[in-house]
């Protein structure tokens, strides 16, 4: 167990370990100079490049009657119009189920591409796309969760998790309430839209540059659509300009279009969605509907919960099943639910296929349970934070799916430390005084906790591979299966490799992620990128270090265990004698010792019985808590976040600058989801908010001026690489404190009782909630 401070102290004056150091992003210099390349930066230098533009359907659901591309074919600059007839393999890109035709005979969402024009310039392709005559026979669409339930339009069977006897406990409970909550979706709005660039390489195989979180799956889908073995397709991802889950499965179709056209035309083909296309064609965070009945004591302790969760999966299955499962796994957040039954089902609608998004269903499950606890608190007239505390897991407790809550004591510890450091109690009384004197503006401070399970809930994804190469001059290339989307994975991996080999960071080069270096990789997702890939890289580096140690030990006439690797040298512990890392490498080469190694890591002891709804799906939990203060204006419902305090558990931070960035960025992204980011579809199923001018993610103006973030100390996680914890997703859910603060402020305009607040809580939603609070007493 150690934190960054301890590590530095342990090696005083000599060698500051690379792991645990607050280093800048591995590509930061490239970012700030514009030199860092992304997929769509690569085409200007390609000769004979062709550009693609989609022909899209103006219906949410329709039969494709005909596609007449003759006028477009003859237009200036047009190479071809791709249709289903051009597919040499299978006309399908579905990642989970084969239910996503690339060129559909039935349109399943508004704006779905039915053909692609390929031309010498983007302009020509765009112009010619309007010349393609496609005719449709409209069919009645399903455009909401409620509608899907009525029509029994589902993508999955009912999933169930159950503990105890919720029906009996409900009857026995002294208090009961029921309700429902609709939770809106969220556009990823990665700044870099979906992009792929494909060409036939020197060996007549397909090479695809793709902005994908999952190169292996992109390779698989491209191979499927082309009808070739996977070894004839290489996919590379240099880096992504953001992904957040939106490029876990949904990069595949564009890569397939580019590959298909590149193969057909024998020229490089570029597919890059405009922002409007990207927003209209790709899936988002799932909207959810939660219906709940809850029984509770006079103190607000839950004894019974019956919860139904429905998600809008959109037109195809995609990842809806594991996303729904994660929502069900996280409907407890930090609370012992007592007797509980949770049912979940994914609805099939004529929306885009909703997909992975930071938190992967977990946030929706947690918003529901926080909603329930707030309603319980207001029904009883007890402060919500008190009701939360009374329901916390305690050491030894098990979740509703039968996994022991490892490190459960951290919930109360973090809560207590944050309450103290944020002056929660004092500030709440200051706020009460402010509110008493302020009729039109109210403030509120609310605090919520986070517990998030780490691992893919599909056990076999929890593996990773690495390939590490040492060259004769001692410089190192690291290949691993993870992709860089801004989360700092490459930074952490570089630190892990440098630490393992005792090298400065500059000696370790992280290579672009390619399917011909490490095969059969999992998506970089589930916050597990550095846990899995970092561990695999460390395994490979330790293998190499062992080989070099053997060579060096022979030179020094000592045992390999007596050597230390640091500062680019290998030291013999007792004498202070040393040799340069590069000299040891040369020596090893001359002795015909292999200087490359693979590493593989698989997370141990994961299992889950889907039939029983029990098991140990998670390797461990990440914890945190946030206290958010808001000021709400009753004239308009507009609000400002004044101060946010966060205490978050990242284990022993491998890279504090990266981790803090994940915590802050995750919080603000969650804040956007719960406040200003509103997806609006028209009655015909067209997305009305398909652009930056209509869909409002947070700007600087939405951020609290006073933003205090601390990482939990003494938090090492023994089962994970360097004692660290996953950090990508968990902080997003800290933003639930902002929603609860808004609700508290709304309630301050009224006279008590249950206070409903729509989600997202746009200024309009807050406005109406205030109007309701002022005129009625809810209960």
């Amino acid at each position, binding site marked *: 167990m150690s934190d960054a401070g301890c590590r530095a102290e342990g090696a005083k004056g000599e060698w500051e370990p690379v792991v645990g150091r607050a280093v800048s992003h591995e590509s930061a210099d490239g970012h700030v100079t*514009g030199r860092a390349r992304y997929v769509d930066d690569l085409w200007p230098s390609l000769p004979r490049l062709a550009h693609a533009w989609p022909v899209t359907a103006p219906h949410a659901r329709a039969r494709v009657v005909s596609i007449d591309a003759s006028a477009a074919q003859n237009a200036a600059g047009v190479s071809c119009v791709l249709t289903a007839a051009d597919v040499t393999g299978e006309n399908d890109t579905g990642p989970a189920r084969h239910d996503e035709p690339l060129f559909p005979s039935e349109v399943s969402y508004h704006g779905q591409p039915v053909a692609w024009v390929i031309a010498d310039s983007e302009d020509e392709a765009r112009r010619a796309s309007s010349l393609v005559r496609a005719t449709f026979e409209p069919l009645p669409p399903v455009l909401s969760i409620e509608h899907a339930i009525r029509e029994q339009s589902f993508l999955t069977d009912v999933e169930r998790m159950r503990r105890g006897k919720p029906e009996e406990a409900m009857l026995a409970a002294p208090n009961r309430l029921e309700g429902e909550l609709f939770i809106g979706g969220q556009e990823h709005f990665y700044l870099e839209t979906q992009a792929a660039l494909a060409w036939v390489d020197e060996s007549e195989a397909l090479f695809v540059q793709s902005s994908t979180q999952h190169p292996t799956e992109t390779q698989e889908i491209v191979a499927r659509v082309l009808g070739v073995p996977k070894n004839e397709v290489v996919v590379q991802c240099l880096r992504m*300009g953001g992904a957040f889950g939106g490029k876990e499965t949904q990069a595949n179709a564009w890569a397939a279009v580019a590959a298909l056209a590149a193969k057909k035309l024998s020229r490089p083909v570029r597919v890059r969605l405009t922002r409007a296309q990207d927003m209209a064609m790709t899936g988002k965070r799932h909207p959810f509907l939660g219906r709940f009945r809850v029984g509770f004591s006079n103190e607000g302790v839950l004894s019974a919960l019956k919860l139904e969760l429905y998600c809008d999966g959109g037109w195809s299955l995609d990842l809806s099943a594991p996303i729904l499962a994660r929502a069900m796994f996280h409907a407890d957040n930090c609370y012992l639910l007592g007797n509980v039954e949770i049912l979940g089902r994914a609805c099939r609608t004529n929306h885009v296929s909703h997909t992975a998004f930071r938190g992967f269903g977990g946030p929706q499950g947690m918003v529901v349970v926080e909603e329930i606890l707030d309603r319980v608190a207001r029904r009883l007239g007890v402060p919500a934070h008190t009701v939360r505390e009374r329901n916390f897991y305690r050491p030894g407790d098990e979740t509703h799916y039968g996994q022991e809550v490892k490190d459960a004591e951290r919930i109360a510890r973090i809560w207590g430390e944050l309450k103290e450091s944020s002056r929660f109690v004092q500030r709440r009384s200051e706020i009460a005084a402010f509110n008493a004197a302020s009729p039109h503006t109210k403030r509120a401070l609310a605090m919520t906790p986070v517990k998030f399970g780490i691992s893919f809930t599909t056990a076999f994804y929890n593996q990773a591979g690495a390939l590490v190469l040492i060259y004769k001059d001692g410089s190192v290339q690291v290949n691993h299966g993870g992709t860089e989307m801004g989360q700092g994975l490459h930074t952490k991996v570089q630190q892990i490799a440098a630490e393992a080999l005792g090298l400065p960071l500059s000696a370790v080069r992280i290579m672009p992620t390619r399917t011909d270096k490490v095969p059969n990789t999992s998506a970089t997702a589930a916050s597990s990128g550095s846990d899995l890939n970092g561990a695999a890289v460390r395994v490979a580096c330790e293998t190499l270090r062992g080989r070099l140690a053997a060579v060096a030990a022979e030179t020094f006439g000592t045992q390999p265990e007596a050597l230390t690797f640091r500062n680019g040298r290998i030291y013999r512990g007792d004498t202070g004698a040393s040799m340069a890392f590069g000299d040891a490498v040369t020596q090893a080469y001359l002795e015909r010792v292999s200087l490359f190694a693979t590493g593989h890591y698989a997370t141990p002891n994961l299992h889950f019985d889907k039939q029983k709804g029990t098991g140990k799906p998670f390797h461990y939990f990440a914890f945190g808590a946030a206290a958010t203060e808001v000021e709400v204006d009753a004239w308009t419902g507009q609000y400002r976040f004044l101060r946010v305090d966060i205490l978050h558990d990242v284990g022993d931070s491998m890279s504090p600058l990266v981790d803090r960035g994940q915590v802050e960025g995750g919080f603000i992204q969650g804040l956007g989801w719960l406040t200003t980011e509103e997806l609006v579809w028209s009655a015909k199923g067209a997305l009305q908010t398909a652009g930056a001018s209509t869909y409002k993610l947070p700007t600087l103006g939405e951020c609290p001026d006073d933003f205090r973030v601390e990482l939990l100390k003494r938090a090492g996680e023994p089962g994970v690489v360097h004692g660290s914890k996953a950090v990508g997703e968990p902080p997003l859910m800290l933003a639930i404190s902002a929603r609860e603060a808004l609700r508290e402020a709304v309630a301050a305009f009224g006279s008590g009782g249950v206070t409903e607040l729509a989600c997202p809580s746009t200024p309009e939603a807050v406005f109406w909630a205030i109007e309701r609070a002022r005129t009625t007493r809810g209960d």
Partner: protein
Amino acid sequence: MTLRFVLNGAPVTVGPDRPGAGLDPHVTLLQWLRASGKTGSKEGCAEGECGACAVAFVGADAEGRARFEPVNSCLVPLWTVNGRNVVTVEGIAGPGGELHPVQEAMVQRGGSQCGYCTPGFVVSLFCEYYRPGRAGYDPESISGNLCRCTGYRPIADVARALPYPPADDPWLATLGEPPLPPAAVDSYDSPGPARFERPLTLTRAFECLAECPGAVLMAGGTDLMVYANQRYERWPMLIALDGIAELGRYEETPGEIVIGAGVALSQIEERLAAKHHGELASLEALLPLFSSRLIRNRATLGGGLATASPIGDSAPVLLVLDASVTIASAAGSRRVALSEFFLDYRKTVLGSGDVIVSVHLPRPTPRWQRFYKVSKRVMDDISTVAGAFALDRDSDGKVERLRVAYGGIAATPLRARAVERMAVGRPWTGETIALLARVLEGVGTPMSDHRGSGAYRRAVAGKLLERFFFETSEGPRAAEVRP
């Protein structure tokens, strides 16, 4: 005709005979930069909302001194850079690749994660670093750039801790020279499917309009180019007005303040900040809320009025200030009260040969003024409802004159005349406001859309009137003239 400009210190020429460099007037600077391999500038939205495409123009402040102005290159037609000096993210580091102080600070503080928005932030910070008269942290300097990864805190920290340039900073030499004057673009000799003109006089603009019936006028282009990018609208001729000196004047006389229709909003802001003390408080309140600085460096009052957006924020403010506009055509010029200017949805009194020359604000301006913007976001958003209010009271405290105008509750920006009339001569009291609120209920035809419901717009329009009363009636807050 060949296009000439300075890019990152080196002269660039773009001509019709250069392969890949089209002369289509709809091509934006961003598209050209990226196709030419300068891919540091990114396209995040193609509608001026995200700032990932930000580049710096060497422009002039109100006094004519050179300065760096960040603009969204996705909304700038390539042709409008003719004669300009442009700096992109690729040009900011030193000749040996040494990072500029704003780049170094972004690296050190963790200001980039995925890096896609970073070039835009670097350009915005670079411009702020050299902004004359900069005193301390100005959130406006980066509020037009969207970041989806960091949550802004580290980038705001960079802006908070910006040092001042040392005297030997090489960029100060660039700023020491007078900015290049706008160069004309005359596309007579480059026949093509569409033409681009940048006349330097109104007379020449009228000639262009007469030559091409479908020609469109472009002031800053911050609205027009969105249509080109998003809807692929194409015009036979684009006439850029940003080189016409007559549209750039700013004058104050005892009777009125005259703002040229082509003066960039950021310049108006500077003028107001330098000279006024609440005389145009509602306009001052509006400008930072209108849009990001990246937009305000290009957008103009004339352009905003001519597009006649029903939710354009400037119209309600100008309406309550009793503005009028001078409209010129080849036949002569005329003055039209702004309250008579808007006819219907996106329709105005402007004829096909008309150009708005200036906006006139009569003096003295109203004693009490407010502008309120209701939107999902505080910064960089389009209004759900915008409300402007202006009030003068007589010596007895009775209402002498009330002006009430809204955006977002009708097909055009709207003055609530019935409310204004009802108020005259009444005491400024809660009873009067209750009466006015009832009258207001019959004003406008608010619609439901993705920004908000009709019911919300209706309700908030009334609340804003109440809020104006709350902030201007007797009591502790009455003394505040400025919002």
